[in-house]
């Protein structure tokens, strides 16, 4: 029920047809269906709304411009509810009942790993915008034939840690503190970051920076930051707890630079509640600042839907859609194998840069490449600047 309400609230819905002939007069023929898997209910419901809004915005443009080789594009949403089981069920529904041509999703890594198996079993292309687990690459490398239709657009944990590590190294700090939720994703990220920074002789100032996601108690962590005085504090949780912790760090009078993995810290409304908002940074796939397509997308989205983008899920979902659309335009007939081949061999332009997929179906996110990500600093509420790469 909550999922239906979210979709209704977003002006979208399961089975909704986007940009059909009557509306646009631009595309005709049998619609191409994209299945969108995301949580639309529960604690991650906001991600579902975000994705529906992005799909509505972008597919309207695609259809107005003639669709894909004259065919309109529609999307059908499946509520994964933030659980692996439901993600699998919804993936099966979208493939078997809705007969989608391609899947985009999911959100959490545990959901994504589950739907990888469904996509592999059914031979349906799957484009993964965000889930960062290295397990996605490991599975593809282990059995490339089975997962030949699975591609990830966003950075994996290793790439993410290295991109953030490069920024930390650029600040010439003697130590750093890592704080995150006590969940597998955050632990893996912490290990990757520690490994990378240890290679450059930057140690962790304290070891025990994990809090319970169910019952976060922040004062002991603030005490550790105060006692060890790291050169920078990395917040590994992309969710709400990072914002709450950042508020408390500043409230406690600690002036240590704060560097978030991104996510909610990129929300200008959240940033506005951190006082003082000094030396607060976050990682993003792309950000405003050069009057380019990212600026246009961010501004247009905010005007259309009334809330700001954060530079991570929104950018990578945008790029996933554009990659999918472009791949479909490049094939004579939209079949799973043709799409997989187009994705594996092509170059695709997105907001974050130019995407090419390697043997593990992962784009080469890294400093110095065309996909380097950015680090953004909040200067004031609603005022930010890209500070990395320089």
């Amino acid at each position: 029920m909550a999922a239906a309400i979210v979709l209704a609230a977003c002006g979208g819905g399961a089975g909704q047809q986007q940009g059909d002939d009557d509306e646009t007069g631009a595309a005709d023929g049998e619609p191409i269906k994209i299945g969108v898997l995301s949580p639309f209910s529960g604690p991650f419901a906001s991600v579902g709304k975000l994705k529906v809004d992005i799909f509505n915005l972008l597919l309207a443009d695609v259809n107005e411009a003639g669709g894909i080789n004259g065919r309109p594009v529609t999307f059908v949403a499946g509520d994964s509810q933030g659980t692996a089981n439901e993600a699998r069920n919804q993936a099966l529904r979208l493939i078997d009942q809705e007969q989608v041509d391609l899947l985009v999703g999911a959100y959490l890594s545990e959901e994504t790993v589950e739907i990888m198996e469904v996509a592999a079993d059914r031979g349906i292309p799957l484009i993964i915008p965000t889930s960062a687990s290295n397990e996605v690459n490991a599975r593809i490398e282990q059995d490339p034939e089975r997962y030949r239709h699975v591609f990830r657009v966003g950075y994996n944990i290793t790439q993410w840690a290295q991109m953030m590590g490069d920024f930390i190294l650029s600040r010439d700090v003697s130590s750093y503190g890592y704080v995150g939720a006590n969940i597998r994703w955050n632990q893996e990220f912490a290990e990757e970051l520690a490994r990378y920074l240890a290679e450059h002789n930057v140690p962790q100032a304290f070891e025990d920076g994990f809090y319970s996601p169910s019952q976060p108690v922040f004062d002991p962590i603030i005490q550790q930051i105060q006692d060890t005085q790291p050169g920078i504090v990395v917040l590994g949780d992309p969710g709400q707890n990072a914002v709450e912790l950042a508020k408390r760090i500043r409230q406690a009078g600690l002036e240590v630079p704060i560097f978030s993995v991104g996510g909610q810290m990129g929300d200008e409304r959240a940033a506005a509640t951190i006082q003082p908002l000094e030396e607060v940074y976050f990682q993003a796939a792309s950000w405003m600042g050069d009057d380019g397509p990212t600026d246009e997308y961010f501004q247009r989205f905010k005007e259309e839907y009334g809330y700001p983008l954060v530079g991570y899920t929104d950018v990578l979902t945008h790029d996933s859609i554009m990659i999918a659309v472009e791949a479909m335009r490049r094939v004579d007939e939209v079949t799973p194998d043709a799409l997989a081949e187009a994705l594996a061999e092509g170059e695709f332009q997105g907001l974050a840069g130019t995407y090419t997929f390697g043997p593990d179906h992962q784009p080469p996110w890294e400093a110095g490449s065309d996909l380097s990500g950015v680090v953004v600093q909040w200067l004031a509420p609603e005022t930010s600047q890209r500070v990395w790469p320089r």
Partner: protein
Amino acid sequence: MLVFVQALVSGLSQGAIYAVVASGLALILGNLKVVNLAHGSFFTLGAYLTYTLYTTWGWSPLYSWLPVGGVVFFVALLAYRLVIGPLRHRRTTVAVATLGLGMLMESIFIIIWSPLHYYLRTTLPVIRVGGVRINLQEAYVGLIALLLMGLLFVFLKTRSGRALRFAAHDAEVAETVGIDVGRLHMLTFGGAGALAAVAGSLMAPLLTIHSTMGRMPMVIGLAVVIVGGMGNIHGALVAGLALGIISSLVGFYLSPALVYILSLAIIVIALALRPTGLYGALLRRDR
């Protein structure tokens, strides 16, 4: 020593909030004899209303808990009239109905406020007293929470409060001596909802506001009620404060990551030693 004092200070304000959330649950459990699984949604409603009052009229979260509590009292009364009251003699059904009510409320929150997350600024600073950090926002929250608990205890000593306790003790006998038990139950439900909403309102500047934010406080509140002795208000206060302090001590001395697990483990141990909860034996003896 300084760390110990810091842990105590941090734990007390957290525990006070646990106690307020749990006291509402305990009130309902003690009187209606059902677990109110919609309790967390009243907490969430309190936070949403606080956000709306701030962004619409600039009302500070420092005092908007008062009107928020009042409004939610009537919302809870309405919920009782529509959902709980008609089923109140079927306890199992009522428990399921409260679960449905909670989910319905979460869905309504999404319709009204959308699934987006919202944030509020904290308005009070952190001060240092003898090397101990005192977060005045948290301290304020804790003090108001303790004040509310105090008022609740005073109320329970009044004529109405005694009637409430008597009805909780034996509803059938209470009805035979002219106490309108149905009305008492409705007011209890309203009061408990208001308590949860006040807790949500007070905590709103410290948390991220979204439709399911009340779930975890409710789970912790239930744990507090169980440890305190099912339906016992004194037990809720003592167990709430104890859980807050224990969580803080675990975080400071062992690991912040272990807070949830060890808190639950301590609850299990406490129940193994006193199966009826801290005040359960007293409650049984009272009967």
